[in-house]
C-alpha cells in the first residue's frame, strides 16, 4: 500500500519526522496539540450523538419490553438479507475510510482519493438499498399513520401465527405501528447522518485532490473518519434490534 516514493516501507516520511513543513493554527503550540484538540472536540460531539441516538434506543427498549410479541411479529416482516447486505456494505465503507486516512498518513494522495471515492460509493449503495426497503414498506402499508390516504395496515399472512400473537397481545396491530414508527425514525435519522457524511466526504475529496492533506496534517480526514465509524456503530446495533428480533419466527 505504501508505494509512494516519499515514504519508506515503515510509512515514515523520507524528509524525516522533525523537519516540519506545516505550521499549526496560531492558538496551538504544535501540530500534535492541534490534532489532540480536534480529536477531543470531535469526541465531545460524538458524546452528544451517543445520547441523541441513545434516546431512540431507550424508547425502543421501553416499547419492546411492553409489547414483545407485536415487536417480534413486526420485525419478522423486514428483509433480513437486505439488512445484512447493508451491514456488510457499511463495514466495507468503514474499512475504505480507515484506508483513506492511512493513505494520507503515508503521503499517498491518489490512494486517499481512491478510498474516499470508494467510501462514498459504498455509502451511496447503502442508501439505495435502504430506499428499496422503504419502498417495500410503503407498498405493504407498513408506514405509520395515514400516508397518501392509505392508513397503516398490518396483517400477518399466516393465520395460525396471527391468532397466536393475538392471544399474547390483542392490540398487536397498533403496537406493530409503534415498532414501525421507531423503525422509520431510527433508520431515517441514521440515513440522514449518512447523507451528511457523504457531503463531508465530497468536500474532503475536493481538498485531497488539491493536496491539502499529507502525513503532517490530515485532521479533517481523521475527524470525518470518527464520524463515519460512529454511524457504522449505530447501524451495528440497529441491524439486530430491528431486523433480527423476529427472525426465528420464520426460521
Amino acid at each position, binding site marked *: 500500500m505504501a508505494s509512494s516514493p516519499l515514504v519508506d516501507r515503515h510509512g515514515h516520511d523520507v524528509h524525516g519526522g522533525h523537519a516540519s513543513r506545516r505550521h499549526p493554527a496560531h492558538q496551538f503550540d504544535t501540530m500534535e496539540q492541534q490534532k489532540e484538540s480536534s480529536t477531543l472536540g470531535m469526541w465531545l460531539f460524538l458524546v452528544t450523538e451517543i445520547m441523541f441516538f*441513545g434516546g431512540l434506543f431507550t424508547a425502543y427498549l421501553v416499547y419492546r419490553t411492553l409489547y414483545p410479541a407485536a415487536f417480534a411479529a413486526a420485525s419478522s416482516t423486514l428483509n433480513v438479507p437486505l439488512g445484512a447486505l447493508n451491514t456488510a456494505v457499511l463495514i466495507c465503507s468503514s474499512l475504505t475510510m480507515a484506508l483513506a486516512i492511512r493513505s494520507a498518513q503515508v503521503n499517498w494522495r491518489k490512494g486517499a482519493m481512491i478510498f474516499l471515492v470508494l467510501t462514498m460509493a459504498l455509502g451511496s449503495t447503502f442508501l439505495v438499498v435502504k430506499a428499496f426497503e422503504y419502498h417495500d414498506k410503503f407498498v405493504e402499508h407498513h408506514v405509520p399513520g395515514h400516508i397518501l390516504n392509505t392508513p397503516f395496515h398490518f396483517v400477518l399472512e399466516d393465520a395460525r401465527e396471527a391468532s397466536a400473537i393475538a392471544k399474547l397481545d390483542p392490540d398487536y396491530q397498533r403496537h406493530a405501528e409503534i415498532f414501525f414508527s421507531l423503525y422509520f425514525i431510527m433508520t431515517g435519522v441514521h440515513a440522514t447522518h449518512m447523507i451528511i457524511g457523504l457531503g463531508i466526504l465530497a468536500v474532503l475529496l475536493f481538498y485531497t485532490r488539491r493536496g491539502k492533506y499529507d502525513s503532517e496534517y490530515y485532521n479533517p480526514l481523521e475527524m470525518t473518519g470518527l464520524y463515519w465509524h460512529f454511524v457504522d456503530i449505530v447501524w451495528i446495533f440497529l441491524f439486530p434490534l430491528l431486523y433480527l428480533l423476529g427472525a426465528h419466527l420464520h426460521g
Partner: protein
Amino acid sequence: MSEHVVTPVKTYVFVFVALLVGTLLTVLVSEVDLGWANNIAAMSIAIVKALLVLYFFMELRHSTRMSALTAIAGFFWLVLMLVMIMMDYWSRHAIVLPVPGK
C-alpha cells in the same frame, strides 16, 4: 504519543474480516429460537463489533487518555440512561401495593 502512528493495512483488514464474521454469526444465531438468550447473543456480538470499531478504526488505542475518557463517559451515560429507565419498566408490574378498603 509518537508522531507517526501508521496502522498496518493487515490490521485493518483483519478487523474488517472479524466484523463480517460477526455479522454472519449474528444472522445465523437469530434464526434459532433460543428464547431470552437470543437477545444476549445478539447484543454480545454487537458490543464486540462496536468495540472493534472503536478500538481499531476510531483509533482509541492511539488516542490521548482525555479523548478515551470522553468516549467512555459517553457510553457510561448511555448505560445509566438505559438502566435507570428500565429499572422502572422491569419492576413496575411486579409491585402490588395493598389497596385500602379491599
